[in-house]
């Protein structure tokens, strides 16, 4: 009975219940999106966009507008700056992205440390699912429904382009448009999820669940479903861990997500060792 009470306890508190709903909604969508982000090898651009949106978030905090607005604006500015900086072939897109994103983080830090800024830098960097508003929950719900619908509709084009862009083009697909649609979904997901996990940790919700399950599944649909489930469970586990240990909720969720990735890899490694030993 004590265990049941302990498990139900966070759901009785309004603040933690909202946090749990937030991580379940975000986990469900980001877990699914992560399969495509990793399949299209967009993890590094995703991290760049997530970190580069910090100035937008700080400006939103300064102006007193919803962080979602700042997140979307920040992602767009980061994407634009990264795209422009990456045009010089002598430097290379990876290097220019790294320098640009570090610069954007610096600008975000400077803005956040000015006396006029509300004392929310930690929330912007590391998020706080315990502080989500009704608007944030609504945004997460819309993202889960509309974004999930978009992923379902785009499933076959994404599969064809991920396997072989040239072949997909001859089937009438437009690989560039498909990639842009995926990037658009990623940008919106980052802007919405940043409230819960912050600019530095939000990528964990997108990438870690797929890493956790990819080697244990054999189809895109199986991987997507498993990654979504793992993301939801890890999010809930993070909130519980935060409740029990009194740790920061955003960082606890991010850590739980990364732990699933490590366990997924370790599980595969152990299975391989066992099969070698039995040979």
């Amino acid at each position, binding site marked *: 009975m004590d265990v049941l009470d302990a498990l139900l306890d966070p759901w009785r508190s309004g603040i933690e219940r909202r946090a749990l709903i937030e991580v379940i909604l975000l986990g469900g969508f980001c877990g699914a999106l992560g399969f495509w982000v990793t399949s299209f090898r967009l993890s590094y651009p995703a991290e760049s966009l997530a970190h580069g949106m910090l100035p937008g978030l700080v400006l939103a905090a300064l102006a007193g507008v919803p962080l979602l607005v700042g997140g979307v604006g920040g992602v767009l500015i980061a994407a634009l700056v990264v795209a422009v900086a990456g045009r010089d072939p002598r430097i290379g897109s990876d290097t220019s992205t790294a320098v640009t994103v570090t610069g954007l983080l610096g600008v975000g830090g400077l803005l956040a440390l000015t006396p006029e800024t509300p004392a929310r830098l930690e929330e912007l960097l590391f998020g706080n699912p315990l502080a989500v508003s009704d608007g944030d929950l609504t945004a997460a719900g819309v993202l889960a429904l509309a974004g999930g619908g978009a992923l379902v509709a785009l499933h076959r084009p994404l599969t064809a382009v991920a396997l072989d862009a040239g072949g997909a083009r001859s*089937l009438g697909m437009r690989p560039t448009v498909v990639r842009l649609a995926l990037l658009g979904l990623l940008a919106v997901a980052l802007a919405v999820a940043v409230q819960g996990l912050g600019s530095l940790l939000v990528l964990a919700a997108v990438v870690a669940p797929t890493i956790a399950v990819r080697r244990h599944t*054999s189809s895109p649909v199986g991987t997507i479903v498993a990654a979504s489930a793992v993301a939801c469970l890890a999010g809930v586990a993070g909130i519980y861990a935060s409740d029990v240990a009194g740790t920061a909720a955003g960082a606890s969720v991010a850590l739980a997500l990364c732990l699933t990735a490590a366990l997924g890899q370790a599980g595969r490694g152990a299975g391989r060792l066992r099969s070698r030993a039995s040979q």
Partner: protein
Amino acid sequence: MTAAAVVAQDLAVAYGGDPVLSDVDFSLEAGSSLCLLGPNGGGKTTLFRALTGELAPASGAVSVTGRPAYVAQTERTRLDFPVSALDVALMGSLANGRWWLPARRADRAAAQAALGRVSLADRADERFGALSGGQRQRVLLARALVQDAPVLLLDEPLAGVDPASAEQIDALFDELRAEGRTLLVSTHDVDSARTFDRVICLNERQVAFGEPGPTLTRAVLEQTYGGEIVLLEDGDGPLRAVTVQHHDHSH
């Protein structure tokens, strides 16, 4: 007179700068086969990309009957992507439109039938990346069969393919031609080019086009491959040629 399925008129293709392929001018009848010969970087894949519409002509024009099916070299596909042979064949049904909806039962039946036609019905559920190179090539051909395109562009379909798969692919080419489909096949095998209806030799421009017998002369092959070919006299038989270039698929 049979209608032309593929026409290139004074075609030049560029990747933003100067043309990497120019002076391409040929017409191919429906139901015939064309072999594309040339060194790596000579323009074979570039011509395919122009025919699929991926690259717009820098000058001149191309026209192709319907939307051509493009069968890439299997090493250009993502072998770590978790799809089955059936999933790949089923992608051919995307050409029918309705890309936002799940595949229909009829599409699945067509994909199964296409895999049967390339003798891989029993491998339908196997992971695409786990198949041999020849089997993967046959799966990509099954995808083209589901697409039901009148024109097929095949980029070095026999490169690195086991002899059993090569034999099956050759037999399938004969069947496709008999069905009235037009085949354009790039290869490094000069001898196999003699089995096609037409041959086109490319080396950053069109060196020659025509029936293989009169076209594949010593002068044409030397212009096409430069120092990257060894020509062997074989008595009164056709000139034998062995290409010796390194593998590079940049064009």
